[in-house]
């Protein structure tokens, strides 16, 4: 017998008897303090994220005036580094600012969901030094449980919740942004 069949056979011999039914998943009430968007932004900031109140052009001019290499995956802003599905990750290594659009925001955690179709090349969201994420305020859901009821997880080959920037506190608990991935993440509501 091959490994697969041996493992499956042993599992079936050893599985605990008893029904152990799969429970239904209830929805729990979520207290957003009366303002879902404000709740989202509050939690985003607590996780080290920023938000910018204004247009993408204003954001770029104010936050990253010196950015030399900009890779944009949104029509709202044209960068100067082309990004297609054929782009090798290595071609994105020197990107200063990446710009993309999220499909969902989660108020409970301040997370944004990035999917492969919007990212065009997944690596841009990690290799860029800074990331700007556009989010339609109507796409903000309450909790992670609500988020997981969305179709994205059945549609895309890659979907990732980003909650603030790359972070580590592996040395003595001192928090550092930009451990390996982006040094900052800024959300812009549209």
């Amino acid at each position, binding site marked *: 017998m091959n*490994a697969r069949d*041996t*493992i*499956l056979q*042993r*599992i079936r*011999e050893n*599985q*605990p*008897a008893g029904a*152990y*039914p*799969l429970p239904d*998943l*209830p929805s*729990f009430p979520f207290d957003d303090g009366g303002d879902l968007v404000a709740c989202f932004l509050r939690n985003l*900031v*607590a*996780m*080290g994220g920023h938000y910018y109140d204004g247009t993408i052009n204003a954001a770029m001019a104010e936050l990253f005036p010196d950015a030399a290499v900009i890779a944009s995956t949104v029509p709202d802003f044209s960068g100067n580094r082309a990004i297609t*599905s*054929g782009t090798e*990750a*290595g071609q994105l*290594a020197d990107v200063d600012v990446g710009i993309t659009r999220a499909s969902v925001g989660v108020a409970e*955690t301040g*997370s944004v969901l990035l999917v492969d179709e919007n990212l065009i090349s*997944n*690596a841009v*969201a*990690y290799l860029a030094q800074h990331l700007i994420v556009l989010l339609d305020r109507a796409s903000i859901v309450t909790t*992670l*449980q609500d*988020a*997981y009821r969305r179709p994205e*997880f*059945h549609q*895309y*080959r890659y*979907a*990732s*919740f980003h*909650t603030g*920037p*790359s*972070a*580590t*506190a*592996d*040395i*003595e*608990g*001192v*928090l*550092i*942004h*930009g*451990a*390996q*991935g982006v040094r900052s993440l800024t959300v812009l509501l549209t």
Partner: protein
Amino acid sequence: MKESHEQRRAKDGLPALLHEALGTPDDGGAKSGSGERLTHGEATSRPLQPPPPERQPRGAKVHHRRPVDHNEAAQRFIDAPRHEKMHDERLWDLRQKRDRQMHGIPEWETLRELASSIKQHTLAHLGDHLERFEAQASANGIHVHWAQDGAEHNRIVHGILSDHGARRLIKSKSMLTEETGFRHYMQGVGIEVIETDLGERIQQLDDEAPSHIVVPAVHKLRSDVAEVFARTLGTDPNNDDVHYLAEQQREKTRPLILGADAGMTGANFAVAETGTFVVCTNEGNADLSANVPPLHIASIGIEKLIPRIADLGVFIRLLSRSALGSPITQYTSHFRGPRHGGEMHVVLVDNGRSARLGEVDFWESLKCIRCGACMNTCPVYRRSGGLSYGATYSGPIGLILDPTFDRRRYSSLPFASTLNGSCTNVCPVKIDIHKQIFAWRKALAETHDIGLGKQALMKAAGAVLSHPKLYRAAIATADGALKVLPDFAVTNRLNTWTQGRDMPEPPRETFHQWYERTHGGEEGAQ
């Protein structure tokens, strides 16, 4: 003048530090745009003072086939007070952060119940769920492999890498690959493996195992890291600034990431419904490993299965809150298929799990989602350091997993516990950890697998417990939950073992009773 605990607490509403001398006004950690100190991820609630350098205590001495002497290594950790206090403080703080998150979610107990039931269901029907996962993943274009043990896993991965002529592999942290001795194997076949998580990279460069399943280098001080980086990466040996050290690692790892032939990750969850696997990190290093090289291999223990995407709502809400007291990890990534032009492989690994499934007393340990909460709360773990267990897994979860890999070598570990039940109280999937530890003591005694002499056994956890004043002070001031049976733990020690079958009773108060009585820890909470 120095502020008292109470004055400080009154200002920020946080519990007092366990070791007051570690307090400091600022640690230079990241702040929000408006200048607030941030505490997400594994960051401490309060800034801590960097302790002066001190020689790092090393872990348990490993002798082939001789049982690990946890007590001996624990004593050496305690004898390095700067390390021990920092370790104790940081892990206790993670526990406190976890409690605050718990209090913010009224449905917390219901989520734990759901998580436990979902895992029980999955394990009781694991064969079906694995087959479904395999079918879905294959349909999505993922190559699925099966490995009976660690050696087979390593061979399979080696085969995939050889097929692609891959010479350098970047990887994110995975306890499974620690189980399989993966890096050691790859070194033998000439494939370079680069860990990309900061803590794991520190441990790799220092040739040490991770001491904690979530924060692998938590037992090290910044001065230790500066020494390791100076020796291995050529950084300035006199600069132990944490920002400098982290930035050096980023800069030195980036070219290795860009030049890698393949990337490897573990998985926190694998979803049968869609063939998706999920990886949670704070650094984004798993996503770099998966998305930069053309080839992605994921090693997944067969117990990681869950049935439905919607179940993730329960588990992701619990995981990082339990682990770090942070609402979610910075990155929670869902892989359902290879990206354009890329190739994706999954290796499903048994390595003892299917056998454990058949053990009436122990199968529920397979519910574990590796959050580390039981370690953070454990008074023995906090004061002895993860490497003192001399095993892949340490702390309470280690006590019940390690003997399944090698009964004799890890025969003394189930005695490195006070059976205070705190681990069980915090476990997000409701594993009755302390009862399993107790059951292991019985099982090992019955089969005469206890390898240490009687004297040594009586000392198990003795180094930690022989400082009853410190131990009592720590639990009395800081933890309502730990009031469960402290007297039992301290006065009974472990010598009742010598009376044969006359084992100490497990704690009488269950979590439910405790919760009812204290409303989830209000009693005695600081």
